[in-house]
């Protein structure tokens, strides 16, 4: 694309205007990947923290941990020390090992829910946005689902199934789908009025191709941002479910479970609750920072406001 022809200005008015370097110091454009990271520090911080957490989860067996399910009744509720970095719980299990392995559960649930809810929400949103006769019905159902507070919906679903990581993922996913579907539908409704979609229709492009080439790519940016927020909220909901006894089975070392076990003793042994709480908060913060940064980077109009 060639730049538009410059408008010819009278020579004296150009000369009278102060030159830019007098007003601003020259700005070095930040280009490339490192430039992107420097322009969006929240993305950098969020991504860095998240990578550390992922590494902790992946490398859990090599980080000086012992089996997080080993019971030892002779060393119950020890304070943190050189031997037991984060102390031991009521059953004598090493809290450091349990917290490190707990990262696996939280991240698995967070990422799985984000991906599954995005895919399902995308499909429902696309159908609702493109198929007019289905729109009213689908959106009423989504409105109804959205009227049930997500945590309660997940609690109700978990009360009917056996506690397992897979069931927790399914329960939280179902609770999150309506939000994605609504977002995608809104984007699709505005996209289908775009001239380039009309042009594609006029050119005889088939509907599946229009969706694939012209609609879908434009939903990806807002979807990605939404997916990070879903990931963050899924990790919190998982911890809440486990904390109140409706989540993953108590034998699994998850941050919510460790806190649930520490709940009875928290006034005398606050460290049992403290360490998983810190890890959970940092992880959720990392994902939220990443989401905020990506929203700013992908949608500069929104960045100004929120």
């Amino acid at each position, binding site marked *: 694309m060639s730049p538009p022809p410059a408008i010819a200005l009278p020579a004296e008015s150009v000369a009278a205007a102060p030159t830019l370097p007098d007003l601003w110091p020259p700005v070095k454009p930040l280009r490339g990947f490192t430039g992107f990271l420097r322009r969006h520090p929240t993305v950098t911080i969020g991504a860095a923290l998240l990578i550390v957490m992922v590494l902790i989860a992946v490398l859990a067996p090599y980080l000086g941990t012992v089996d997080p399910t080993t019971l030892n009744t002779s060393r119950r509720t020890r304070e943190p020390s050189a031997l037991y970095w984060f102390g031991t719980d009521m059953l004598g299990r090493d809290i450091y090992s349990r917290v490190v392995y707990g990262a696996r559960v939280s991240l698995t649930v967070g990422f799985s829910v984000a991906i599954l809810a995005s895919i399902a929400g995308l499909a429902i949103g696309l159908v609702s946005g493109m198929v007019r006769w289905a729109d009213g019905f689908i959106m009423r159902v989504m409105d109804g689902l959205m009227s049930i*507070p997500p*945590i*309660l919906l997940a609690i109700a679903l978990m009360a*009917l199934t056996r506690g397992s990581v897979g069931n927790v993922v399914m329960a939280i996913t179902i609770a999150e789908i309506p939000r994605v579907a609504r977002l995608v539908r809104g984007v699709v409704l505005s996209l289908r009025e775009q001239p380039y979609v009309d042009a594609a229709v006029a050119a005889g492009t088939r509907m599946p191709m229009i969706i694939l080439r012209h609609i879908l790519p434009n939903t990806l940016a807002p979807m990605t941002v939404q997916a990070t927020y879903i990931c963050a909220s899924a990790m919190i909901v998982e911890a809440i479910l486990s904390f109140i006894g409706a989540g993953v089975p108590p034998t699994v070392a998850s941050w919510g479970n460790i806190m649930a076990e520490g709940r009875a003793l928290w*006034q005398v042994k606050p460290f049992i609750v403290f360490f998983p*709480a810190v890890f*959970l908060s940092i992880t959720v*913060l990392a994902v939220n920072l990443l989401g*905020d940064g990506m929203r700013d980077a992908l949608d500069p109009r929104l960045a100004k406001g929120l």
Partner: protein
Amino acid sequence: MLTYVARRTLATIPVMAVVALFVFSLLFIAPGDPAAVIAGDQATPADVERIRQSLGLDRPFLVQFSDWTWRLLHFDLGRSIFTNLPVTTMIAQRVEPTLSLMVVTLLLSIVVAVPIGVLAAWKVGTWIDRAIMGFAILGFSVPVFVVGYLLAFFFALQLEWLPVQGYTPIARGLWPWLENLILPAIALGCVYIALIARITRAAMLDVLQQDYIRTARAKGLAQRPILFVHALKNASVPIVTVIGIGIALLIGGAVVTESVFAIPGLGRLTLDAILRRDYPVIQGVVLLFSFVYVLVNLAIDLLYTLLDPRIRY
């Protein structure tokens, strides 16, 4: 206007119907025999059969649903499997603490969040703005029970300013009632404050760019009337909207907050019901909270016309 109120009110009926249908169908969507799941792993076949009978699960789906809806319309939510009390009675016994907690949290959040949101918008780009927005993102990220334990640890256990746990009915005096609710309300309010402050700031930034704000400045009005009279009033619609949407966060958070602070409300009822697999109680609580949520948002929709006279229906 009146036709709008009527139309908008009627529009909540299909939403509530979907909620009811969904909450009811959960029993059948879940994999496996619902009676066996509710009975638990140690149940004998006789137990399973008893639960199947008491929930009426041996009848066709449509018969069960119409029967259940009919009773629901008469405010009958069935009986608890565990205590055999009517679910409505059990809910009524537990409503006060939860309602108190939510009202106190709601008021506290609005009183804190709106001014700091306005402040952030006024001082946009400065360190004050960044600090407030930083706290907001922290508020989104730290789960409610973590805030709850931290507050209880410092202000109740260490400093002994406030009671650690428990609840006092409002009938025993205003201060004893409030004293027990301060820490839970702050813990529960964190996410909510973050949400409202963020939207307030965004809405204010939008309004502060309008021509009439420049006019108000040009005619020499002081900063405060501009911010709170001219700007905030016109920014109120998105703020009120998010307050309504945020009630869902409040409801979910209340269940957890009550268990951290040992408040005997609906959250505790839910918790006990989960442990006992008392499904009618869970169903009742979920339905109640969902209907409250729908009705609050209905009220807020109707409020728009008062806040912004330009909105005509």
